[in-house]
């Protein structure tokens, strides 16, 4: 087959994909430049970038950017490190491995809202939560998680949900690791750490890159966990960009400002992605 025919055959699907991306993006950009409030149907037209100005001058804007990045960074670090440790730990055969694997992965299949409610009420409640009861048992003052450590609470909640995802990916990819290499290393007298650094980690470079990429996409727009537990507070301590868009614009039915916030979120996502691709992208090509 010649190249032209191949291109022609590919064209429809590529066109659909392109439209799938361009149309929503175009609409967002268009909405972000006009007056568009659902509750004021009579107001419309070009808006002099004031949607952007309104969103950008919000006192919560920079804290929200900072919180977004902290959330993404912390959850990524925790889930990758913990995920690696757990995946390596349950890689060796032992009795009941199948059950343990299922148990470890199951948090990932819990809905984010349910996850948040579970942590908020059963674990972190300062009166009857598990942590409070444990603290009281040893005579310590229970921590009021949601009010004193709001961002950390959300990081813990999200990490609990997403570490299993990392475990799942790492575990399956460890299964495909060459047994002979491992045995050869063992025979050569390589210790656990030597094998981990020189065999396991290089083998997992690609899955790690995938986990980081996929999780980044999801964590940039964390919403349910914040909405259910802290509602972005106290103050704006746990407000991220997605929640700020909700609070400032969706609540006020202002599609214009919401779209402006959306465009800013897209820009931020691209910057973060650029850095991450630079940092770990190499591992996608080497190996």
């Amino acid at each position, binding site marked *: 087959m010649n190249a032209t025919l191949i291109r022609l055959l590919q064209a429809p699907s590529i066109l659909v994909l392109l439209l799938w991306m361009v149309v929503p993006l175009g609409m967002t950009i268009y909405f972000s430049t006009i007056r568009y*409030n659902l509750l004021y149907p009579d107001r419309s037209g070009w808006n002099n970038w004031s949607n952007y100005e309104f969103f950008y001058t919000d006192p919560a804007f920079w804290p929200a950017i900072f919180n977004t990045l902290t959330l993404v960074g912390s959850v990524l670090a925790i889930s990758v490190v913990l995920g690696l440790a757990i995946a390596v730990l349950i890689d060796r055969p032992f009795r009941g491995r199948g059950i343990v694997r299922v148990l470890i992965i199951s948090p990932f299949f819990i809905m984010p809202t349910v996850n948040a409610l579970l942590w908020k009420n059963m674990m972190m409640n300062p009166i009857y939560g598990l942590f409070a009861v444990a603290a009281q048992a040893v005579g310590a003052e229970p921590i009021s998680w949601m009010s004193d450590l709001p961002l950390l609470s959300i990081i813990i909640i999200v990490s609990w949900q997403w570490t299993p995802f990392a475990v799942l990916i790492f575990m399956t990819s460890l299964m495909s690791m060459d047994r002979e290499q491992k045995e050869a290393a063992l025979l050569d007298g390589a210790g656990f750490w030597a094998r981990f650094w020189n065999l396991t980690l290089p083998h997992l470079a690609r899955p790690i890159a995938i986990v980081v990429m996929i999780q980044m996409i999801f964590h940039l727009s964390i919403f349910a966990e914040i909405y259910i537990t802290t509602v972005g507070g106290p103050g704006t301590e746990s407000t991220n960009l997605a929640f700020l868009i909700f609070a400032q614009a*969706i609540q006020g*039915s202002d599609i214009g400002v919401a779209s402006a916030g959306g465009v800013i979120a897209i820009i931020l*996502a691209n910057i973060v992605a650029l850095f991450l691709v630079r940092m770990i992208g190499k591992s996608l090509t080497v190996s």
Partner: protein
Amino acid sequence: MTMLGRALTGIAAGALSASLAIAGELTIATVNNGHMIEMQKLTPDFEAANPGITLKWVVLEEGTLRSRVTTDIATKGGQFDVMTIGMYEAPIWGRLNWLVPLEFSAAYDVDDLLPAMRGGLSYDGQLYAAPFYGESSMIMYREDLVQAAGMTIEDNPTWSHVRDVAAKLHDPDNGVYGICLRGKPGWGDNMALITTMANSFGAQWFNMDWTPALDSPEWQAAVSLYVDLLTSYGPPGSEGNSFNEILALINEGKCGMWIDATIAASFVTDPGQSKVADKMAFAQAPVMATNKGANWLWAWALAIPAGTKQAEDAKTFIEWATSKSYIELVAGKNGWGNVPTGTRQSTYDNPEFQQAATFEEAELKAILSANPEDSTLNPSPYVGVQFAAIPEFQAIGIAVGQQMTAALAGDISVEQALANAQAAADREMRKAGYY
């Protein structure tokens, strides 16, 4: 991207279901409260009495419902034939001509509706939504503990008295906190309570020229007392507590006092879920400088979006669901203690209801004393007790609510919180072009 994706999916879903609407089938959006679920269960009764009309239910959580119906009605989605809306939306949407004006037959007895409810759901004297159930706020307290402390709580005590009682009841070592109040940020959460507090101190949301009035000394005094009450005599973690969280604490016997929705009375006196069902007593909401606006007024009501093609059938349904006979139908099935209250005088006049409900007198008194059109000591330009019925209020409410929570958590001073709140409200009002 994800936000936009969600919005687009919503719009697409809306377009899809609009085209799938079947003649004679009413799509009803409602909130997942107990009374609404009961209404859904009674579908066969309605369908049997009205052949040719079938009901399709969309039952959603409060916040989701609000954003779904707002998007649908504003984009003329036509997804729903009957919408459950609150007292906040009814006058705003009525003014925009988004709702079908409700005219009922004589049998419906529209004059039986409680005047406060009727007023709050009307715009310019025209009723736009029929109340399904309504509520106000009041004090619910542990009579046994208050008596043991040698105190009493009369109707409309001052907030200072409430503080004194809370101090006496507070006994965290034995697992009892003096007072439990909402702290979770949100215009319908902590701001509902804080606004009624501020009203009673003589404060208001907006001045007559629509500039925000959050920097007044009255707000300062009210919020200072609120923060003081909860930090000195409240449970830990109040920043995350709203209705359901506190209800759980009360039912476990962990709160001495609670000021919240009157609907809670039916839960805390229900021995099936409350450990202190026989120990609860009720009093009218606390006051300070004025009685005006000291207790809130809310209703969930049924309305017909202007875009529907089945307005007649929709009206038939609303007339059924908010009628006297509907209340009797529920009473026949579940007893008079479980009927939707707060809407009709006839319910409260019913001797069987009076016998079944221990809280009915306090609830009716609270509802009748609330007046959304006159809820502040000094004149204000808006309608609503615990909210201002303007489109901007939701965004302002959540921003101010967050600042109140920050003050409660001790992150910033009350003064700073109110200054931030004032700035946030000012931004929003400027953007909307009020001045």
